[in-house]
């Protein structure tokens, strides 16, 4: 049981770090969704509750692979609150649900006009997972597969009489379909050191009310997680993300889409056997963005806590 706990705990850590599905934001992904869903193996009747809050600064200006100095004192950020729960339906099957609340703000220091902000309920995600292989004392591999849907239950017309741009909306405003998978390998029998891989793909085929659709998105993450004693853990990894260009009325939107490679470190502490907290961050390593100029991630950090019933 202790090994199972440790393995689950580390997988939870890896899930916090390595998966992401874009909510309403610019191409650089402002709001974590899937990362807030724990990927730990779940036994029938298990129930996990997670709360994650993330601050995401997106003030970098990037021309292709090159950072551009921006002399206008631009500030662009998102704060997201995400609650999720996972329930073990049956042996090897679990279901997760997620709801988000998002605040966006932006300002240009040299402007005569002040900061602008939007907030509201964001998207929801439902994910059904099947885990054919667990890490146990007799198996060092864990494989999990999932399918899900992103539901536009939130606010996508924020801004008052003048609706603000798509990247300032809490919700995408259109449904998306998700394919998800993860793999973990335990380097030792106690599973205190693991290799974690994770991928997901989101299809964004639907337009919102303003005929806008975000580009399809693919994420792949690889990292190492290790537990130290029975309470502490850390992880470090790289996350690659690519998106197609956004579209309106099937015309591609210039300056959207690209590739990102981020470094994603995290630490975790088990407050009790049932409550785990973690801190994570994300900083850009490399990026290659479409078009002449795009905003992109400067950094992000998140706090998360997970309670197991």
């Amino acid at each position, binding site marked *: 049981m202790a090994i199972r706990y440790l393995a689950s705990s580390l997988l939870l850590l890896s899930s916090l770090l390595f998966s992401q599905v874009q909510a309403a934001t610019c191409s650089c992904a402002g709001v974590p969704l899937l990362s807030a869903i724990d990927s730990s193996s779940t036994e029938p009747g298990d129930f996990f509750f997670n709360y994650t809050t993330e601050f995401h600064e997106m003030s970098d200006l990037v021309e292709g692979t090159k950072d551009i100095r921006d002399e206008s004192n631009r500030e662009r950020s998102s704060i997201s609150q995400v609650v999720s729960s996972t329930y073990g339906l049956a042996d090897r099957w679990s279901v997760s649900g997620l709801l988000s609340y998002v605040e966006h703000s932006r300002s240009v220091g040299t*402007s*005569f006009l002040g900061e602008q902000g939007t907030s509201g309920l964001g998207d929801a995600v439902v994910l059904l997972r099947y885990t054919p292989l667990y890490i146990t004392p007799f198996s060092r591999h864990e494989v999990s597969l999932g399918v899900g849907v992103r539901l536009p239950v939130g606010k996508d017309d924020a801004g008052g009489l003048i609706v*603000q*741009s798509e990247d300032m909306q809490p919700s995408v405003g259109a449904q998306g379909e998700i394919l998800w998978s993860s793999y973990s390998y335990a380097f030792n029998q106690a599973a205190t050191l693991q290799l974690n891989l994770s991928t997901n793909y989101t299809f964004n085929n639907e337009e919102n009310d303003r005929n806008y659709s975000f580009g399809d998105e693919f994420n792949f993450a690889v990292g190492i997680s290790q537990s130290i004693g029975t309470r502490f853990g850390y992880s470090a990894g790289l996350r690659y993300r690519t998106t197609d260009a956004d579209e309106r009325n099937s015309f591609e939107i*210039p300056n959207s889409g690209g590739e990102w490679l981020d470094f994603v470190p995290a630490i975790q502490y088990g407050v009790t056997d049932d409550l785990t907290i973690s801190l994570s961050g994300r900083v850009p390593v490399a990026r290659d963005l479409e*078009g*002449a100029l795009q905003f992109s991630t400067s950094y992000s950090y998140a706090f998360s806590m997970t309670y197991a019933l």
Partner: protein
Amino acid sequence: MLMKNRIPSMLCFLCAQLGLITLSYSGIAQGQSAHLEGNTLILPVVTAADKAFRIEFSLEANTTPLRISLISAVELGSPDSIDISNANSFSGSTLSLPDISVEGASFRADFTLINQDPLIFQLVDAAENSNSAPGNPPNACARPEQDLSHGPDNPAVISGFSVDPSKIQDGGPAPDGIPPLTNPQFTQNLELAGIFPDSLVVGVKVGDDVRAYPHQILDWHEVVNDTFTVDDQQQQMTLSYCPLTGSAMMWKGFAQSTNKTFGTSGLLFNSNLVMYDRETNSLWSQMLEQSIRGSAVLDIPEKVQVVETTWQTWQAMYPETILMTENTGFSRPYGTYPYGSFRTDQSLIFNVDNSNDLRLHRKARVLGINVGDSSKVYPVADFGDSVSLIQDQVGGMDVVAAGSSTQNFAVLFNRQLEDCTTLDFTPVQNQLPIVMTDNEGTQWDVFGHAVSGPRTGTKLEKTNSYIAYWFAWTAFFPGTEIN
């Protein structure tokens, strides 16, 4: 008596000082109605002793009573050959203007000479003429009034907006996220300017100050708050260019504004730039040329004519031009167009009205005009390789469009003068900036200035016209006729 005899010689002396030509007047009827063009008081005919003159005065700012100082004087010849009924006259020390047109009303005004060198007069008496009817200028021919903006005539202001706010879209960047430029740098070292000959520029000529603003810089900034010297006074002007609609304007602020600079609001109306003024934060639609929200709602900016053309053509027109440099204080990839293939393909980045009007390619550059309820466009590509003219009537206004597809410019003027003369034009080749000559022998440049011939010093009335992409023009003005 002594003064009466001295004035013609004084004027001729000033003619000589100003380097002006003394014209042989051929007896063609001239309108004598004095009128204002900006701060310039134009007197088409002034009789003094046995001679007739065309004189322009500058209104001196902040003078009470009003003072006017001489700008230019051209001797027209003997009054015997001219219809001088109701003409302006100078006798003794009094300049009498029996019929001065101000904002559609007729006034009489008398000025007295207070200084001879320079020649300055001061207002001593003025009154509205009894036969003056507002909106109907004296000596009015059937000359349609210019629309001062392209906005609807009687728009309702609802919730502070004069347009449907649901059609205003947030472009993505925050206010001033596309950073406006203020007092940019210019260079005279044109060979090192790094601009291709066929690159488009927005050309401006204010007095002798000739400047070019390259599209490749405007694409990244959209608004340039610049300063010109006019009559020894610094005057703020704002050049705006919307890369999504391909439209350029220059404004001199708006009535009563003290801070005449503008910023980019980050908003778009029909995919077109919406600016905000830095005095009231009111929003302004560039293509409507009108404020659409805020305390300035429905206000109309004062405009200055611009000419969009290639850098090569502009240089040929005005070799003395200076060019805005890429040393803007901002790091932007000026050699790269920000919107991919947008300016050549059929794509739309933002929703616009009337987007199904595909009579022309969406990104065809058209010179459009609105007169009353009539709207018409002249595709720039349809002008000939050499300078060609289209004499036309739009909404009852006789207009002349001059342009060249190869040299990539198009301008449009009212060809009926204030004196009701309707001129007939023929194109002039290889003499840029001169583009046409009229049936009286006057040659006119691309800004509508008469540069030689009997009407030298006069200016054709600029129409409320500008170049834009077709999709944008038809979005704003559905039902537009295509030439």
